[in-house]
């Protein structure tokens, strides 16, 4: 049994250096690595490039790291709902690279799976295509897109075991599994950490081979952006 458990978030992110490239799981605020983000705030490391579908909100998620000026660049598909983001972008403090969501997901998947480049139709004929190779297949036009990898991937799962196997819950899965595979060092925080052998091998979403460190998270806020209920 390979044991990957670390004590807490601070120990897990201990060696993330200045100017590192990070991937952070989540869609909106759903499935984000809350504990790791708090630890990064405490650590104060700066110059980070963050690959994340969204950029949090002003006072939660990656928004907090923006406020503390730890982020140099965001690679995302949608960065709305964040005034501080807008201010830093307009003032030139922050760089942003917007990528179509499916292309972002696939580029990360490719990074984890050793596929350096692939063709996708998304963005053909748009400004996303600038400088990219174009090719026609079966009468349709495609762009060549490259893989994305990270120095560290920070993912959040529902359950995990000591060898790093992960199970996500609901739509909190989103970008987490691909990011787990695309990080040189992948840190997983889980709501429930169990001994190896307790999770059904057939139900595991992220095999432990992709995870280098895992810890039991705490105090999950799981903030909801649009609490919409039935009338």
């Amino acid at each position: 049994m390979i044991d990957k458990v670390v004590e807490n978030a601070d120990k897990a992110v201990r060696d993330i250096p200045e100017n590192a490239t990070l991937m952070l799981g989540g869609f909106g605020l759903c499935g984000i690595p809350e504990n790791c983000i708090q630890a990064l705030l405490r650590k104060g490391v700066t110059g980070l490039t963050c690959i994340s579908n969204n950029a949090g909100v002003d006072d939660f998620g990656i928004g907090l790291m923006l406020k503390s000026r730890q982020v140099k660049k965001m690679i995302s598909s949608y960065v709305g709902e964040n005034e501080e983001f807008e201010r830093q972008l307009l003032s030139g403090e922050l760089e942003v690279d917007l990528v179509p969501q499916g292309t972002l997901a696939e580029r990360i998947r490719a990074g984890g799976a050793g596929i350096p480049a692939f063709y996708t139709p998304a963005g053909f004929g748009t400004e996303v295509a600038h400088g990219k190779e174009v090719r026609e297949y079966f009468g349709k036009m495609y762009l060549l897109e490259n893989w994305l990898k990270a120095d560290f991937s920070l993912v959040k799962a529902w359950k995990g075991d000591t060898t790093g196997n992960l199970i996500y819950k609901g739509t909190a899965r989103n970008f987490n599994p691909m990011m787990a595979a695309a990080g040189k060092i992948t840190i997983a925080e889980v709501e429930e950490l169990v001994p190896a052998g307790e999770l059904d091998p057939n139900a595991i979403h992220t095999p432990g081979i992709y995870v280098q460190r895992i810890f039991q998270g705490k105090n999950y806020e799981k903030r909801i952006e649009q609490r919409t209920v039935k009338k």
Partner: protein
Amino acid sequence: MALDKIGIAKRIAQEIKTGTYINLGIGIPTLVANYIPENIHVVLQSENGLLGIGEFPTEEDVDADLINAGKQTVTMRAGSSLFHSAESFGMIRGGHVDLTILGAMEVSENGDIANWKIPGKMVKGMGGAMDLVASADNIIVAMQHKSRDGESKLLKRCTLPITGLKCVNKIITDLAVLDVLPEGGFRLVERAPGVTAEEIKNSTAGKLVIEGDIPEMKI
């Protein structure tokens, strides 16, 4: 009289065939779900990783780990499945979703769509829109016929940055139902109740094709 948002959603619901998988964009498209008849069985896809979106939850059933692409809390129907974002866009890109309904700022007469960016305004990003429009075989646009400034949104060419080329099949607005013709041009299919073909013509900057009597929508 021009339709309100609910009227547009109701008219779009008539386009929906039983046995299909559908991706609904944010805004009017999301409303469409409320007007699909009971005998029409469809599965709604949410690109953040869910097939089988159900109703909004009750207060007690709210689950922060279960949201739609508009980040609203939702529930799941019987027969739902959950998956990651690469699988979700694999579904979309691979042509497995039968119908995509989304909003637009502009549509051109050859089916180009612009709906993600206004120069000079803060750019929030394209989200999944570029993947959806580049991939789907059947795209219906739900939008107002004219902008708030009274400018037509059905144009000869889009003036805003493009989201995708030659991809829109049908447009349903507050004034009309229009097909995008393969050779270019908007073919008027139906008029909103009490709206004349003339009014629609005056509100359409791109090439409008009117052949014979144009029926009124039945909503």
